[in-house]
Structure formats: structure tokens, C-alpha cells
């Protein structure tokens, strides 16, 4: 039997369509179809000036927006030779890690939903995300599409009371993460539907260009924050979380552990954050020297890359955006044949894809 899963299906987390050939409940073949959210971002940006681009990047991975902006602004900074003030780097790190936690919360809720634990964990996840979102709203002025990072630093300084509110939130989070674990980890349904489901070994994941929590759950501890430190990440004490199972449970566990490490980073950054300007002296209409640069950062979902080719003008000649969701989805699709259908849902959900990012 052929089953058309998506593009409008709550369990595909966006407009992913998978044409599944079934034999009874077993998946014989699964062919993913992408492009329902393709907006031609890479073409549109060729007509825009450099300062006009971050708002569009916000709309790619709309769950971890700030992480998208970072790769791009860092690529521009590298080509232009701009030095970012210390304070801006610290604010960036704090917000990026909060953004990562938000993104994992927004994954955790719907993931449990897909497993049949309807309601409770979903709403807990979104509630906690909401608290952080309020901090972002106060800081950047927007709930979702922040447009806060700019080459040379930040658009404006953080509001009064930012440090107090951020540390209050950060101190609260470990207990919240414990509560989440308590909620699902001993749950019979959750264990049955995640442990041993959709396992991927490290070599295959690597060969497919997978990255982020998906790759680390397969036992390969690659984290760009440690391996190729950017911004001020080399000043913080945190560890790279990995798990050996490679299954849905390992992917869940890695994200939970990772959030604790993010909290540690935030706390250290809040302590060390200096005063000073948040933006380097630069003009709005910037012209980049001729050249090319590929800048990659550890996004909530993996390696997010921005490859800028400049012809010396004030618009990028070419801007390629490397999407972690795309590579991770590609890797996970080889797992699908041979599964029963409900496991397909669990596996796709455990990858944590955002279609705005895969389709661009």
C-alpha cells in the first residue's frame, strides 16, 4: 500500500512529504519530497545589501533564529576584518545558548506528542520556552524573528535588568530539565518507543554529513564550539555531550544533557560579561573586499554554514547556506525502510528538522 505522509501532517513538523510504501505495517520504501517551503532565499539575498539579510535568515530555521544569524554575521565580519567588542560577544553567547535551550524545548514537547504522550510534556515544553521567549522579546523587541545580530556586534545593547532576569531564568532551568526527565524517562510508553528505535552508527552518520545532537547521539563527539572555537566559547568550561546508542532515546538524552551544559555556559558568561560598547564602528552600507569565506557554527541542530562569495560590492555575489536539518534528514531517511510505521514517525521526529531550513 502506498501512504502519503504529509505535506500537511502534524507529525512531519512542517511541510515534509514522505511517500511510504507499506507491507502491512512495515515500511518497504520511504521517498521524501522536499521543497514545499522553498522560497529561494539564496537567490533573494543576491539582490539585497549585507545589512538587509539577517531578517531573511531568521525565517529559515524559525525555531533557533539567532543561531542562523550568527554564521552569516561572522562570515561578513571575517571578510571585512571587523572586530566585535567583548560585551557583544558575551551577549551573543548568552542569547545563543538560551536560543539552543528554547529550540530543544520546542523539540521535546512535540516529540513526546508524536510518541503518544499527548498533552502534558508538550505543554510543559512550550511553557518553559515561553519564559525564555519573554526575555528575548524584552531584549530584541521580537518574539520570533529577532534580527538582533549585525556585523560588528548587536543592533543595540541589552535592556536594564537583563543580567538579573537571565540569571534568574538560567538558575531555574536545571530543575526544569530534571522535571522533564522525570516526566518521561520512567514512562513505559516513552521507553518502548525510543530505546532501540532508529539506531544509526557513527560512521554512517558521519558519511552522510550529519551533525549536531543527531551525530553526537551516534557516539561521535563533534561539537564546533569545542573543535573550532568561535566567538568566546573557548573561555567557558563545558563538555561535549554524546551518547553511544544512536537511537531515538540517545538523541533525546544528548539534547537533555546539552541543555545543562548550555545553562553552565550562560551562567559563566553572565558572570564574566564586561561593560562597554556592543557594536564596532562600521557603516550600514558595507562593502566587502573581493574574496570568499565559509563560516560555520554549532547550531541547535548541527553545523550551520554560511559561504559568502564577494565580488567587492555591497551585495553578496553568492551566499550559500548550509542547513543542518537537510543533511540530518537525508541521513535519517536511510533508516526508514524495514521499520513499522509508528517508528518512522518517532525517528523523523527525533532528528529535529525544521523545514524552513531544509528548503530555504
Amino acid at each position, binding site marked *: 500500500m502506498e501512504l502519503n505522509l504529509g505535506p500537511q501532517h502534524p507529525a512531519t513538523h512542517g511541510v515534509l512529504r514522505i511517500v511510504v510504501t507499506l507491507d502491512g505495517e512495515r515500511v518497504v520504501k520511504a521517498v521524501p519530497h*522536499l*521543497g514545499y517551503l*522553498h522560497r*529561494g532565499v*539564496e*537567490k*533573494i539575498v543576491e*539582490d539585497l545589501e549585507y545589512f538587509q539579510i539577517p531578517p531573511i535568515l531568521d525565517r529559515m530555521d524559525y525555531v533557533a533564529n539567532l543561531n542562523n544569524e550568527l554564521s552569516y554575521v*561572522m562570515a561578513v*565580519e*571575517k571578510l571585512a*576584518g*571587523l*572586530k*566585535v567588542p*567583548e560585551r557583544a*560577544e558575551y551577549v551573543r553567547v548568552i542569547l545563543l545558548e538560551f536560543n539552543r535551550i528554547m529550540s530543544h524545548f520546542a523539540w521535546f514537547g512535540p516529540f513526546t506528542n508524536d510518541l503518544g504522550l499527548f498533552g502534558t510534556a508538550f505543554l510543559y515544553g512550550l511553557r518553559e520556552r515561553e519564559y525564555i521567549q519573554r526575555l528575548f522579546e524584552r531584549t530584541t523587541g521580537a518574539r520570533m524573528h529577532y534580527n538582533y545580530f549585525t556585523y560588528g556586534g548587536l543592533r543595540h545593547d541589552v535592556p536594564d535588568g537583563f543580567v538579573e532576569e537571565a540569571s534568574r531564568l538560567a538558575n531555574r532551568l536545571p530543575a526544569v530539565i530534571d522535571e522533564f526527565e522525570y516526566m518521561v524517562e520512567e514512562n513505559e510508553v516513552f521507553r518502548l518507543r525510543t530505546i532501540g528505535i532508529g539506531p544509526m552508527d557513527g560512521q*554512517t552518520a*558521519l*558519511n*552522510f*554529513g*550529519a551533525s549536531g545532537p543527531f551525530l553526537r547521539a551516534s557516539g*561521535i563527539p*563533534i561539537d564546533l564550539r569545542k*573543535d*573550532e*572555537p*568561535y*566567538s*568566546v566559547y573557548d573561555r567557558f568550561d563545558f563538555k561535549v555531550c554524546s551518547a553511544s546508542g544512536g537511537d531515538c532515546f540517545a538523541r533525546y538524552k544528548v539534547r537533555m544533557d546539552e541543555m545543562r551544559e548550555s545553562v553552565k555556559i550562560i551562567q559563566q558568561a553572565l558572570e564574566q560579561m564586561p561593560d562597554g560598547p556592543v557594536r564596532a564602528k562600521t557603516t550600514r552600507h558595507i562593502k566587502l573586499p573581493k574574496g570568499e*569565506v*565559509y*563560516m*560555520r557554527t554549532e547550531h541547535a541542530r548541527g*553545523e550551520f*554554514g554560511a*559561504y559568502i*562569495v564577494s565580488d567587492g560590492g555591497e551585495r553578496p*555575489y*553568492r551566499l*550559500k547556506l*548550509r542547513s543542518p536539518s*537537510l*543533511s540530518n534528514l*537525508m*541521513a535519517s531517511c*536511510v533508516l526508514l525502510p524495514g521499520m513499522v510505521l509508528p517508528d518512522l514517525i518517532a525517528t523523523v521526529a527525533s532528528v529535529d528538522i525544521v523545514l524552513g531550513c531544509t*528548503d*530555504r
Partner: protein
Amino acid sequence: MAENTPPTTKNQTHLLEIERLLKGAHGQSLVATEIKNDELFADVAPVAVPDVMRWLRDDRSCRFDYIRCLCGVDYSDHVTVVYHLFATKTKSKITVRVEVSKESPAIASVTDVWAGADWLERETAEMFGLVFDGHPDPRRLLLTEDNDAMPLRKDFKLDYGNEQSKVKRDNA
């Protein structure tokens, strides 16, 4: 701290070593190499792509086992396919650039070297009108099957607003 990785002599020497080995093994297929901003760039002739790529993955001192990014850039007279590779053990990286002419836009697929090139090649193919020879599943990825527009080529111009303003709502 805008700089990514501070130029370490260790990394520099490793890149020089790779450059030397690459020249030794595939000297005749290399158009040019350069080390800039602590990164290695290699321009490779299109016919040599399968050999060079396999060598980059398998050679003991290279081991570029991870494909980060594959994309095209349209330089009016030709399209350049750019491969960003990463070695997970040594953390070194290399950018390989291959010029493909627009008259015969064919280049060998590297999906058998890195499985991760699969969808990236499909996307590059549809966006630039290239053909990746030997690709196991050369369907379009993001565009619809009947779309031959090659949107990321420079002669494809976006028509802001005008097109939309022409489309009147039929029922209005």
C-alpha cells in the same frame, strides 16, 4: 575574537603537508592551490574529480571524511562547484573548487565517496543546470519536476512585484 581559529603553526604545517602530498599525487590535475586565512584551497580539473576526491578521503594524512557543504557559484562564463571538506580526526579543512563549462555542464558525482553529497548535488544540479554523472537518484530536490528555470544562474532575474501585480485575482 572575530577571527575563527588563530593561525597556529601546527595547522599551517599540516596544510602545507597536505598541499605537498596533493601536488605529488595529483599534480597534473591541479589547476592551482593556495593557503589563505589558514585554509587550503585547491582548484581541480573537472575530469580528475573522482580520483582526487577519493584520494582526499582515503589518504592517510588527509582523511577528509566529512563533506560539509557542496554548492555552485555562477561566474558568467562557467559554473564553479565548491566542496567544503573537513577531517574529523585532524580538524583540518580544505576547499576544492572545480570549474564546469556551461556548454557541457557535466561533472562526476561524489556520492560514492561521501553519501552526504546526495541531496546537495541534486540541489546544485537543479539550481545551476548541471548534470552530476553517476548520481544514483538525479531527481529534483526543491523545485518541481517540470521546472527548468536554473534559478541560481545569474541570467535568471527576480521580477519583484511586477509578476504578482499582473496576476489579478480571478474571482475579485
